[in-house]
């Protein structure tokens, strides 16, 4: 029995030794065997590790079709000379890390990227820096990959002549974490991609959206920061999305918003902070979504809920310093507003249960007028408008009768 055990251990050790000997380290650079990255990749075999030394390497159209690790030392730069894609990965389990990639080609026919993963599994892109590329990291039909710690900076000028930072097309189970994306068209873009986890990323100063979801079911994004993007974050035509603890900041401008929800079902929006956006959340065709424990501050509109939203729950949120708390374009309300804190609430709490005894109506008459005639917004702050709003609050005639928080919180919950 023990002999058998010893035999197995011995066999295992042999196997480890064997695989160890097969996994070679190939150095590229002044002191290495190769000076060209493509030659190194061609000579490598599965399981090898290619280490690229400091220096600038001109790499264009490099295809990685074996299971290798491509790793850069400090200041190892791959320059694409604006020709083609820099690296295209077509093998599973490839790891690319610590490299700086710049100047990929630009094409309006195919989506050229700094690194493209094409139809692969279990790949990882870690701690790379991508500068001045058309698309930066492009994943197509790939699954269970990991993209983390990358820094992507573009200098996009116009939407139609620029690509996305991290672009996922028909992917599943991809983890995108702790990346920083700026100056691209969309910071992070997902289309037909499912079960992804997006966390700890910072996406700022992108031309269009900080994050853009289309037809991508079952993804979650947590603890990301989306700041100062052209139009904030857009989540469209999707269900079962979890959006927790993100920050949506300073997405300010005409036609801009913190979070755009369009045709979203059965999702959760919890514990996020919406600060300084033109519209905190803009919801259109949004059904059975729970919006809980979020903070809305200093927004133009905290919530814009259009008439085609049904059975959404807006509860335990904190609204302060928004020009308009809630605005809608309908006189019917099919959503639940309950137990939120509204800084404009002027009710009292006689039974001391920390909940106001008088209902709060977050839709002001003036916001309805502005919804109908945008020009009327010049009257913001006018004495007349305040009189009208006060009168409407006492006897609601025009504002949706059922859009009411029957039990608003008296005190702010902890921030």
């Amino acid at each position, binding site marked *: 029995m023990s002999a058998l055990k010893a035999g197995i251990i011995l066999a295992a050790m042999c196997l480890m030794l064997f695989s160890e000997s097969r996994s070679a380290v190939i150095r590229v650079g002044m002191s290495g065997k190769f000076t060209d990255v493509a030659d190194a990749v061609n000579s490598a075999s599965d399981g090898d590790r290619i280490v690229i030394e400091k220096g600038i390497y001109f790499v264009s159209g490099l295809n990685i079709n074996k299971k290798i690790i491509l790793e850069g030392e400090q200041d190892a730069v791959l320059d694409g000379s604006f020709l083609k894609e820099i690296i295209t990965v077509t093998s599973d389990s490839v790891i690319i890390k610590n490299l700086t990639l710049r100047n990929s080609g630009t094409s309006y026919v195919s989506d050229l990227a700094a690194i493209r993963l094409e139809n692969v599994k279990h790949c990882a892109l870690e701690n790379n820096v991508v500068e001045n590329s058309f698309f930066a990291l492009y994943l197509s039909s790939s699954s269970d990959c990991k993209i983390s710690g990358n820094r992507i900076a573009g200098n996009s000028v116009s939407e139609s002549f620029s690509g996305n930072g991290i672009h996922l097309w028909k992917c599943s189970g991809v983890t995108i974490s702790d990346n920083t994306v700026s100056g691209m068209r969309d910071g992070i873009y997902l289309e037909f991609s499912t079960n992804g986890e997006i966390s700890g990323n910072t996406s700022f100063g992108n031309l269009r959206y900080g994050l853009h979801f289309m037809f991508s079911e079952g993804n979650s994004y947590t603890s990301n920061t989306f700041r100062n993007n052209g139009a904030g974050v857009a989540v469209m035509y999707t269900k079962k999305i979890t959006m927790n603890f993100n920050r949506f900041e300073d997405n*300010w*401008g*005409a*036609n*801009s918003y913190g979070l755009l929800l369009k045709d979203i079902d059965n999702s959760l929006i919890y514990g996020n902070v919406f600060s300084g956006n*033109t519209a905190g959340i803009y919801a259109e065709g949004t059904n059975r979504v729970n919006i809980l424990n979020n903070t809305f501050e*200093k927004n*133009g*509109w905290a919530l814009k809920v259009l008439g085609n939203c049904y059975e959404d729950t807006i509860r335990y949120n904190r609204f*302060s*310093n928004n*020009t308009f708390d809630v605005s809608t374009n309908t006189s019917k309300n099919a959503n639940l507003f309950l137990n939120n804190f509204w800084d404009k609430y002027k009710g009292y709490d006689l039974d001391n249960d920390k909940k106001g005894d008088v209902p709060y109506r977050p839709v002001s008459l003036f916001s309805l*007028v502005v919804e*109908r*005639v*945008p*020009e*009327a*917004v*010049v*009257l*913001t*702050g*006018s*004495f*007349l*408008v*305040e*009189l009208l709003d006060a009168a409407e609050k006492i006897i609601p005639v025009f504002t949706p009768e059922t859009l009411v928080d029957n039990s608003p919180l008296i005190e702010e919950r902890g921030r």
Partner: protein
Amino acid sequence: MNLRKIFKYFFSDIIRSKWIPVYTVLLFALTSGIIYFSRDGQKAFISLLNIALYLVPLLCLIFGSVYNYNSREFVEMLLTQPVTRRSVFLGQYLSLGLSQTAGFVLGMILPLFIYDFSINAALLLAAGIFLIFIFNGFALLVSNMVNDKVKGVGILIAVWLFFAVFYDGLMLFMFYYFADYPLEKTTIIASSLNPVDVARTFIMLRLDMSALFGYTGAVFKKYFGSGAGIYVSLLILHLWMIVPSFFASKKFKRKDF
């Protein structure tokens, strides 16, 4: 007797009447109260804006006219001296305006500057001074036209209501009934005709609410933020300052005491 001397007499008379100290203290109490009790700077500023845009003109109208009615004998006495009516009128107008400006600056702008020295505060100061002179012109115009004090004050309250409330009501009415038409230009013209609206729009745009305004906001920002818009608005404010006081002086020159 020259203008400076007349101005000095009027000014010291106004200061002695206790109106201005009370006005100053009232503004000071309101301003510091708002700043102290409101936790947020922007909100406090909007409350102060409301005081400067609506309360200050109202007090102007009432004080200016009541003072004019009460100083009738003083004016008659002055007119027995070898002075022109023009210099008496100017002395009265300037001393009313400057004394209230002093009260406004001490009561409102000083605490605001101490709390938050910003371009917004400076804009508020400019708006306040314009409105003080504009509405003093109205006060003198009406009080020189109507000899009955109660009637005069009543008319002035109607003037205030017009600029502060009815005008915006008319704009709202226009927005609602002509919603199907492009209204940007009309809105710009309408809001630059009312001095209260000009002041409010300028400051609101400064507070970066322009993004709220969407496309209209972009048009507005372009107009009020660019050279031409600023000059046109300033011109209109000056016209509001000059025209009523011009007619008031005309009335005063022909007035039979």
